[in-house]
């Protein structure tokens, strides 16, 4: 089902959020014209509160007056609606689809908190623990890449960027910023060579470049968050 160019597309978000970046990448790949409305999370707009009353979070995609929430649900929606050939984000094989979906669940479940903890870490102990957890996930993704990329193709999706590429790739800016702030190497050629090559291909893609914030902006914001961070009590 192809959408006509007349239907309005609005993305509510904040430019630095990986979850918002995901939607931007998907829209760009599909060459969909959209309006971006920057939210201030401490003063959420009426439109956001009305469009996502359940979670009150970004991103929200509003298409033809109807809101869709949750980043990867939005990405799937975009893939289902805008079906120009050569831009499909999900593979056609049901098992390949399941792999994209499973790894995305795992990523948001395990990688996001580890990376966040690493970015916020202010003691050697906290840094070491978070680094180990983060690297463990990256190692698993390195192995998954071998299985999923069909031998020698640049992306998890094969020749072109797919669902899982978008899910992981959206974290690259924050990963680079964390490397800068904490002083370590996550995208280490020696340990995860395939992912490093993948990251370069991903970041060089125009659809991605267009919505990727400058690393220094993320660094600035992360430093601000760090200044206000209190670690959770020890269990």
């Amino acid at each position, binding site marked *: 089902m192809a959408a006509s160019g007349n239907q309005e597309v609005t993305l509510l978000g904040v430019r630095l959020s990986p979850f918002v970046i995901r939607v931007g990448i998907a829209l760009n790949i599909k060459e969909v014209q959209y309006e971006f409305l920057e939210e201030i999370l401490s003063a959420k707009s009426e439109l956001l509160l009305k469009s996502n009353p359940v979670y009150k979070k970004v991103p929200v995609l509003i298409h033809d007056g109807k809101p869709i929430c949750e980043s990867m*649900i939005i990405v799937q*929606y975009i893939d289902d609606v805008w079906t120009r050939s050569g831009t499909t984000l999900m593979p056609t094989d049901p098992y390949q689809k399941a792999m994209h979906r499973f790894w995305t669940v795992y990523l948001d479940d395990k990688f996001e908190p580890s990376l966040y903890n690493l970015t916020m870490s202010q003691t050697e102990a906290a840094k070491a623990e978070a680094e180990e957890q983060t690297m463990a996930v990256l190692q698993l993704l390195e192995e998954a890449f071998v299985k999923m990329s069909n031998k020698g193709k640049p992306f998890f999706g094969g020749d072109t960027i797919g669902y899982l590429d978008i899910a992981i790739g959206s974290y690259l800016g924050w990963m680079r910023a964390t490397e800068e702030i904490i002083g370590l190497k996550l995208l280490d050629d020696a340990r995860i060579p395939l992912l490093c090559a993948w990251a370069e291909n991903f970041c060089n893609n125009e659809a991605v470049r267009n919505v990727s914030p400058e690393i220094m902006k993320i660094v600035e914001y992360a430093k601000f968050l760090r200044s206000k961070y209190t670690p959770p009590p020890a269990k």
Partner: protein
Amino acid sequence: MQHRSHINFPQTLIHSQVKMAEGDLKLLGTWPSPFVLRIKMVLQQKGLSYEYLEQDLKNKGELLLKHNPIYKKIPILIHGDRSICESLVILQYIDENWSDIGPPLLPADPYERAMARFWAAYIDEKFVGSFWGILKAATEEAKAEKIADSFGVLQQLEGVFKKCSAGTGKGFFGGDTIGFIDVTLGSQLSWIKAVEKISGVKLLDKTKIPLLMEWEKRFLAIDFVKNTLPNVEKVVEYGRLLQATTWKVTPAK
């Protein structure tokens, strides 16, 4: 344990029987898990035969560890040499791999699909957080908070059902046949009733959620649902065991 299923579409559709020996289909699970129950329901709705293997989570077997090394959890669907994990991922795999058999689990319309995925994720998040939260609550205060949350969730879903069925008069979130939201919510029913019995709170109240209660009646009338959902008393027993051992909560009674 072999299951041969008899498809039983709700009253509005043609009654038919499909037997599918789809090579090697195995489902690893535990009897009380709603995440497993929903897989059983959908496999039966599609008329797919499968082998069910009950797992001991305190003593995880080789098959479980081999096919879900990342999470070491159930359910796991093994299809030939493929392993699929995470219940909502499994449901979509079944729906897509056998799209030519039985009714579709997800609607065709992209917006409706997005809504189905959104509400299914919501249900699972809230079930673990709010309903089980009632059983896990250490203080009366915490319990009251989780009870209020749970009422809120059911009220929200009442609204969703109203929207889904507005003007169509269809019996399920999925329309004429049970769909993604139906199995996600429906697979929680024995637990919701067990929580009611253990905590002494009536959650499934037809004065508060009349549409959902009508939906529940229709859902429970389906043969493969009836013979999949575990007995509530067994779940009550299990819930009390979890309170005593895993969650270490001493009930107020």
